[in-house]
């Protein structure tokens, strides 16, 4: 198993200043730019420590929000491509359906791959609902735009020889010939995220790494849909390395201390729900049939414990988050057991995205969490032999 260390790089000092929304419309006057700079340096230090300790690293971006200062992820990628030595650098991701210029995306990502010596994993994402008011990209039809951008980036990264022409529905170029081209051949590994079975199956058919974020015990059906798509395309079941999962992780030498850290980390979930309500569901983000169900008040719970109890991840207790597979929390033995059990449930999970800093967790606690996990949990996870679940429907 690979373990990618991740933090959203939050500007937590503003979290108590919101008036019902931490995203999109929280005035930036509550941000102190000097303090933001100090926080960036703290987070980069933690990423570099993770590199030294044997982790891989992951970066993301969100816009106009106190929950994540990384609004231009190319900046963090640039810093870490130069400063880290061994870690794979996963960006999860590039919201390519929002970006006006996929040529620029291809150039940026190829350059990161070159500078890092071929350590880039490139995740392409649709983006959460709150990105649309910021980018002003039309949420209706965004996946059509996403896939055209994806096709273009892959072609731009792999094409050699005479410049090529692209006149698509959304993007137009006449002389495409990126400099530099990427180190990894034919191109850096592609990742994506999803919460829908149809998209999971599509990702499977392309063989890309599928990551799910905090999906807990709703993960297996998505993984199985992926397996079906993969099996249909490649004639065999995908290995565990095709799956990634983002979980919150709080480790400490005592259970009591781990729970204290887990509670601070869980503030990430509690704050991520604080957003002006209409921004949560822009038109076309989910299917009309699902919106119709919402109009009728028929909303199904999204998170469950292993034994099927619905929970509200944004407001529930640390114990419930542990029971739901959203937070791995405890002593190193407990955390290892929780993760191993979750891998078994998934039928194999080759990549853990470890949210080892989140919420109000301090630098000292983050460092200790990272060191303890690296020393006592990671070696066991690396040695653990992943199950490989067979594809079902397509088999």
């Amino acid at each position: 198993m690979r373990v990618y260390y991740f933090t959203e790089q939050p500007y937590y000092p503003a979290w108590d200043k919101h008036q019902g929304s931490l995203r999109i419309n929280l005035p930036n006057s509550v941000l102190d730019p000097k303090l933001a700079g100090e926080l960036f340096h703290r987070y980069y230090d933690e990423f570099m420590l993770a590199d030294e300790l044997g982790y891989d690293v992951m970066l993301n971006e969100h816009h106009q929000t106190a929950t994540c200062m990384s609004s231009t992820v190319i900046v963090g990628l640039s810093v870490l491509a130069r400063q880290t030595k061994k870690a794979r650098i996963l960006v999860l991701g590039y919201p390519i359906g929002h970006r006006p210029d996929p040529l620029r995306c291809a150039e940026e990502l190829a350059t990161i791959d070159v500078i890092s010596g071929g350590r880039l994993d490139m995740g392409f994402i649709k983006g959460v609902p709150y990105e649309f008011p910021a980018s002003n990209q039309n949420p209706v039809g965004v996946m059509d735009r996403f896939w055209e951008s994806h096709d273009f980036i892959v072609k731009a990264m792999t094409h050699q020889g005479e410049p090529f022409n692209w006149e698509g529905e959304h993007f137009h170029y006449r002389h495409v010939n990126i400099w530099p081209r990427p180190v990894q051949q034919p191109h850096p590994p592609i990742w994506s995220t999803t919460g829908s079975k149809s998209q999971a199956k599509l990702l499977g058919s392309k063989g890309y790494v599928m990551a799910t974020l905090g999906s807990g015990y709703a993960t297996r059906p998505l993984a199985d849909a992926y397996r079906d798509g993969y099996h249909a395309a490649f004639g065999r079941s995908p290995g565990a390395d095709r799956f990634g999962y983002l979980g919150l992780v709080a480790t400490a030498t005592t259970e009591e201390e781990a729970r204290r850290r887990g509670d601070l980390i869980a503030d990430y979930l509690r704050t991520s729900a604080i957003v002006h309500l209409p921004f949560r569901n822009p038109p076309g983000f989910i299917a009309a049939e699902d919106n119709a169900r919402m109009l009728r008040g028929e909303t199904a719970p999204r998170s469950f414990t292993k034994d099927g109890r619905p929970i509200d991840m944004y407001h529930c207790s640390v114990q419930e988050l542990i029971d739901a597979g959203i937070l791995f929390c405890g002593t190193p033995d407990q955390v290892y057991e929780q993760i191993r059990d979750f891998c078994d449930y998934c039928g194999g999970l080759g990549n853990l995205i470890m949210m080892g800093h989140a919420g109000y967790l301090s630098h000292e606690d983050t460092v200790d969490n990272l060191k303890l996990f690296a020393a006592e949990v990671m070696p066991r996870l690396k040695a653990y032999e992943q199950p490989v679940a067979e594809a079902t429907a397509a088999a």
Partner: protein
Amino acid sequence: MSVAVDAEPALVVNGVNVEIIERGKGRPILFLHPGIGIESDAPVLDHLARAGRLLAPSHPGFGNTPVTRALSTIDDLSYFYLDLIEQLDLRDTLVIGIGLGGWIAAEIAVKDSSRLSQLVMANAVGVKVGDRETRDIVDIWSLSQADFDQLAWADPAKAKRDYAKLPNEISLRAARAREATARLAWSPYMHNPRLRHRLHRIRIPTLFLWGMSDRVLSETYGRGFCAMIPGARFEPLERAGHFPHLEQPEAFAERALAFAADTTKQRT
């Protein structure tokens, strides 16, 4: 309000299935609905059908029709309606457009108004009136339904719908309408920057019939839009908001038809 669809015979225009309500006889009245769609039991339809052959289509992507990639802008829809008007051989047509439908009506009329006689624009969007940092039209997608209703209706209580107690098709039509509107009008927001430079081509009598309690669009916006069309007249409609055809259906139909009758008389 309940399900639309009068079970009319299927109409296919340029390969696209059209859901259309047709009632009455006489000169054609083409009714172009706003972003919330149109239901067949809306009283305004019967009031209008007394004066002619009322045709009230659902724009492609609205009602129970699927989205067509080739029809994803208001410009596309204006050509679609020109095809429809030719296919049905409509002549001497009174076009009534509300909100988004008004925008479509204007885009049709600047292209070809040879089969049109009068235009009624009710609380229509479609142009930019203020400067670039002034939002002319309230951002409906950053409002809750309740907040939108407060701004859009003279009497917001009339807007309330308990979807849980209505047939599923009603909530599905509402959800489709929201998505279809965004597909057409997300950005540039609710307008075409080119349109104002083309409005001089509208040479048929035009009435801006304006629900005065509308706070999604201001009276200033309505009068500004009206001033861009040569000879267009502005008439306020009281006790009505963004959807005057729903809040004052009888007065709305009466005023639209009176305008059509007056301008027909003047012409002959």
